[in-house]
């Protein structure tokens, strides 16, 4: 079979990048980002991007670099707090922002990947989110009709991937990534560790490989922590007196 494995993220993204691309990017804030893919997007200089991501970076880092570079025309997300680059360009009117309730955001992406034409959710009824959308009462409860989200490209990061594209995520870095991988024409996975088929037990796969078109091993990540919260070790050797 023609392989899915690429040597570098630039190779993996070759032929896909263009101005006006719709890009889904997994991760929650700066955690679990496809860091090398984001850097490659920045290097490429493509413009007019629509970024579909929960936060579109934060604190000037991650996807916020694309904002700094003025490569982004629109952001579809659920939360933009802590992202001064986005706030500034949104207020200036140079970037359009479409806010979604986070659950609706996730479900719209899932619908995009699962061939669902639309779904009724109770979230957002009576709010600004429902404006212009169909409201429908079903079995005595009111719902908003929400439509699927799709993209040209999804970039996701996983802890382990095999040559067939099967992925396994670490802890809370899973978030939107499996959904986005389903909802994009091309999904590029950036994995901490690339393994041979069979190294992952079939029951251990988080995202089946058919959703991943290209895969590249990237061994080191910055893994920026937004809020490093810890507690003192009680009576520990290094504990405070």
């Amino acid at each position, binding site marked *: 079979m023609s392989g899915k494995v690429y040597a570098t993220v630039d190779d993996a993204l070759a032929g896909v990048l263009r101005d006006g691309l719709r890009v889904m990017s997994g991760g929650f804030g700066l955690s679990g980002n496809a860091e090398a893919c984001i850097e490659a997007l920045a290097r490429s200089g493509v413009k007019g991007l629509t970024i579909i991501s929960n936060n579109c970076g934060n604190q000037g880092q991650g996807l916020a670099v694309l904002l700094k570079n003025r490569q982004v025309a629109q952001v579809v997300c*659920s939360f933009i707090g802590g992202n001064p680059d986005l706030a500034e360009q949104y207020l200036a009117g140079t970037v359009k922002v479409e806010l979604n309730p986070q659950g609706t955001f996730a479900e719209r992406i899932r619908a995009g990947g699962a061939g669902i034409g639309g779904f009724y959710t109770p979230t957002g009824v009576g709010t600004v989110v429902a404006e212009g959308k169909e409201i429908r009462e079903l079995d005595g409860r009111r719902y908003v009709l929400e439509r699927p989200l799709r993209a040209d490209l999804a970039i996701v990061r996983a802890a382990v991937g095999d040559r067939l594209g099967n992925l396994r995520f670490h802890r809370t870095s899973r978030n939107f990534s499996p959904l986005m991988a389903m909802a994009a024409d091309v999904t590029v996975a950036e994995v901490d560790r690339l393994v041979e088929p069979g190294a992952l037990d079939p029951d251990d796969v988080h995202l089946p490989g058919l959703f991943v078109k290209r895969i590249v091993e990237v061994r080191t990540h910055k893994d920026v922590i*937004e809020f490093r919260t810890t507690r003192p070790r009680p009576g520990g050797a290094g504990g405070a007196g």
Partner: protein
Amino acid sequence: MSWSRDDLVRRAAAEVRDGQIVNLGIGLPTEVANFIPPGVSVQLHSENGLLGMGPFPYDDEVDPQLINAGKQTVTALPGASTFDSALSFAMIRGGHVDLAILGGLEVACNGDLANWTVPGKLITGMGGAMDLAAGAKRVVVLQSHVAKDGKPKLVARLTLPVTALACVHRVITELGVFDAAGDHFVCVERAPGVGDGEITRGTGAPVRFA
């Protein structure tokens, strides 16, 4: 004498029942975890994809890929599970989260909640607030009784943009505990030394005293 910040959080912690699945909103509600009474065992849900969230890690345990919805580093207790955001919000929307304790900007006596944005201020987005408010089986709001300018935050009708309609069961403020009861609030508990008058004057909707 109204409740202190810690009193408020401690009173909120008393809302938690043994065996519940609980989601604590960002900010003050997060601190409720520190006051859950002994013998009450709950599983904390974090909407970014974690059930069974534990306390902050020791310094040498920090995992950049193990965070809560406020993007703080946390731990996973024995029996924890991780999952994607679609399943996480299926839990919320499907009524599998027993209790959400959220911050508030305004609560109306019919249970309408405003807690995500103030017109004219920099927009931050609703994140998971609308899903939690609309989906959790029971919603308890922690907020101050009145705004800094003295304007009531318990009202007959919201003036701020809605988060979800008819979703709040109970509001806890520094003055007491109030249940949304349709066309009025019911004051079910008072902070020590707080009189009817103080409550009535500070509330923008009728209050009945239980």
